[in-house]
């Protein structure tokens, strides 16, 4: 069984508002799945459905091959979750809350806890109401990373963290990924997803609009080409597969269909190439492509 998470045709409405129309994706062991989409696209609703906090209207959702609603407790023994907005009891200290979460999850590792508290530079003696947003987030992350699970669900886990702590988080996620765990990472920070994710699921208005590895997605998208030629570069504008052509002097910038790259290169060779750069699309380009237009 390789699919740790399997979601098929998930639907959910809140009253008249249809939050999820059709959500399908899978997450496998030893894999980080990046779950991206703008605010209100249905990321958190999907995650809450996976956690059995809310009940789906239609579709199938399983974790470890078990139904997320009916067998939620069986599932919860082996997962860890960090919400995007970790709300804590103001009267308890960070240390007490971490201990409590570990105990309620079961099977926590005390040395790991102390190691993570140090790495994330958290003061565990402070009452939670004195914590900033980033520090509350750290409490949630430490509690989730101190226990041993097979699936980690992170819903915008680094919101409010400083860049140093973000990179500590990314290190830790890479460690658990190498240990063969499955990770579902919902995030706005595309550079983070780009660094960690093996697979990307893009959701828009309750529908998954794109899913696949970053390479696969990149292949479907145009690369950005910048070139300088000896001859008149304007001729490139009419070549098959060239789009959004812009020229200044002998330099041209355009986007190119990946399957036409050979034609473009041979046309360019005739003009005498002085410089040729091709940049694959960043995740941000991919993302924007789905939301603009």
């Amino acid at each position, binding site marked *: 069984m390789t699919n740790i998470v399997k979601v098929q045709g998930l639907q959910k409405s*809140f009253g008249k508002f249809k939050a999820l129309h059709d959500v399908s994706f899978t997450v496998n062991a030893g894999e980080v799945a990046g779950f991206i989409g703008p605010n209100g696209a249905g990321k958190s609703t999907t995650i*809450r459905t996976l*956690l*059995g*906090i*809310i*009940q789906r209207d239609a579709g199938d959702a399983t974790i470890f091959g078990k139904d997320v609603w009916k067998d939620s*407790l069986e599932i*919860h*023994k082996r*997962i*860890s*979750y*960090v*919400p995007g*907005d*970790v*709300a*804590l*009891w*103001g*009267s*308890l*200290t960070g*240390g*007490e*809350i971490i*201990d*409590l*979460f570990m*105990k*309620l*999850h*079961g099977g926590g590792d005390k040395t790991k806890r102390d190691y993570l508290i140090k790495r994330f530079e958290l003061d*565990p*003696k*402070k*009452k939670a*109401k004195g914590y900033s947003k980033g520090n509350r987030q750290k409490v*949630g992350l430490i*509690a*989730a990373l101190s226990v041993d699970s097979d699936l980690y*669900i992170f819903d915008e886990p680094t919101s409010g963290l400083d860049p140093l702590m973000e990179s500590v988080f990314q290190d830790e996620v890479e460690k658990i990924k190498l240990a063969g765990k499955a990770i579902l990472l919902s995030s706005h920070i595309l550079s983070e997803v780009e660094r960690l994710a093996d697979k990307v699921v893009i959701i828009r208005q309750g529908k998954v609009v794109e899913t696949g590895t970053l390479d696969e997605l990149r292949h479907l998208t145009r690369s950005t080409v910048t070139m300088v030629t000896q001859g008149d570069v304007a001729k490139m504008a009419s070549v098959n597969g060239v789009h959004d052509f812009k020229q200044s002097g002998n330099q041209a910038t355009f986007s190119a269909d990946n399957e036409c790259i050979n034609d473009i290169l041979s046309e360019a060779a005739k003009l005498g190439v002085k410089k040729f750069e091709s940049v694959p699309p960043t995740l941000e380009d991919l993302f924007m492509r789905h939301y603009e237009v």
Partner: protein
Amino acid sequence: MQEKFARSRVLFVQYLKRDWKKIIIWILGLGLFSAGFVPAFEEIGKGQGLQGMYETMQNPAMISMVGPTPVETAADYTLGAMYAHEMLLFCGLFAMIIAALHVVSHTRKEEDLGLTELVRSFQVGRQANSLAVIAEVVLINFLLALVIGGVMTSYGADTISADGAFLFGASIGMAGILGAVIALVMAQIMPTSSGATGSSLGIVGLLYILRAGTDVSNVDFSMINPMGWTYLAYPFTKNNWIPLIVAIVFSVIVVIIAFALEGGRDMGAGYLSEREGRESAKKSLLSVPGLFTKLNKGVMISWLIAFVIMGAAYGSIYGDMQAFLESNEVMSQMFTISGVSIEESFTGTIMMVLIGMVSILPIAIVNKLFSEETRLHLSQLYATKVTRAQLYWTSVILAIAAGIVGILLASGGLGATAISAMGDRSSINMRDFFVAGYNFFPSVLFFTGLAALALGWAPRLGKAVYGYLGYSFALNYFGGILDLPEWFAKTAVQSWIPRMPVDPFDAATFIAISVISVALMVMGYMGYRKRDMVEGA
């Protein structure tokens, strides 16, 4: 000065805009409730009604609940005198509570929510908000006084004169302002909004209980009690404005103290600050019951202390009862004929009041689970092996346990003080008090069950259970005064339960209500098990 209160006028106008619906309900609701019972009282007063009521109201039990009257003979007990006697204290108490809740919600609560931080980043004085809120509350209570005075005058009853009616209204308005200034001070001292709300209501409750004691033993002492400054104006009989002037002076002084306290503290901090905490959790915290006990600890301890004090305060009245009977022949005969001692009769009534209060705590504990849910505190717990059944039943069982301990402390406090106040003349013993208290246990269970049902199916209605509690309380309160039809009185759950030790124990009712309550809890669980968690929406 300028610096501290800059832009408070803007905030004041903003509050009126934000709250206008609440203000209308507040003024009309409380105003009509306070002024609108004149026709009902005219009905009671027909024939020998006024004299009969005068005798009834001489009972210390009644005085401890509704306050005293300056009238000395039954013949002088007019409609106006009766109305002020029976309505003024209760309405003033309501006005105080509403105003106190409102002030905390616009001061300490906004601070806790981080709204104040945003507001202060503009060109707004550090104390502008407090000034704006107090101005709003004063305006609301001023309008409330006018509405009450106007409505009462409009009935054109003989003994309800215009100046008396406006004094009656002004007393209620003044009660609201007193509640507001007390809350403003508490908002500075306490470290959280719930602490400020709890302590303000605690003070109001304590003042009410203290005046019950002084009203029965020596009314003059009630004059040093802020709550006394409302009903001691005696509208329609003495029309004495002096208590109101005292109250105004007191309010101004308290507001100045509050401003001084506020000026001396940091935003978000209180004078009772918090210590540094533990690095690791104690064993006792590390379970669902442990967590919920800890979360409810503050509320439970303060209410349990309040129950003992309330019981003790009512208990102290028992010493004066025999003296009262000796001075009043009609009442003395009444009790001799019915074969019930005055202490027994009082115990039955007061126990209903006390156990009504005790019901607040279990409702609060059950409602706590939903407030934890909406504040996202449980998000990470849902993803562990903690079941919904654990969360639900832990809360419900904790609530029931708190109810059991609450009854124990309330009846224990009442009984112990009553027996020591009565000395050798005691006609009832400790056991009678406990039996009378636990006799009302099904009603506590019933309120817990209602709250649990709401938690499972319509969690936003959890607060409405307090509404029903207040309704049943008011119904039983006025049930002794107004002659309510049987079916109407029975809409309050306590009305089904006999009042021991006067009435005999009714096992069938006791069991029936308990079973219904447990059924409500089970039904609530069925809803809770399958509903979507709300999570801040």
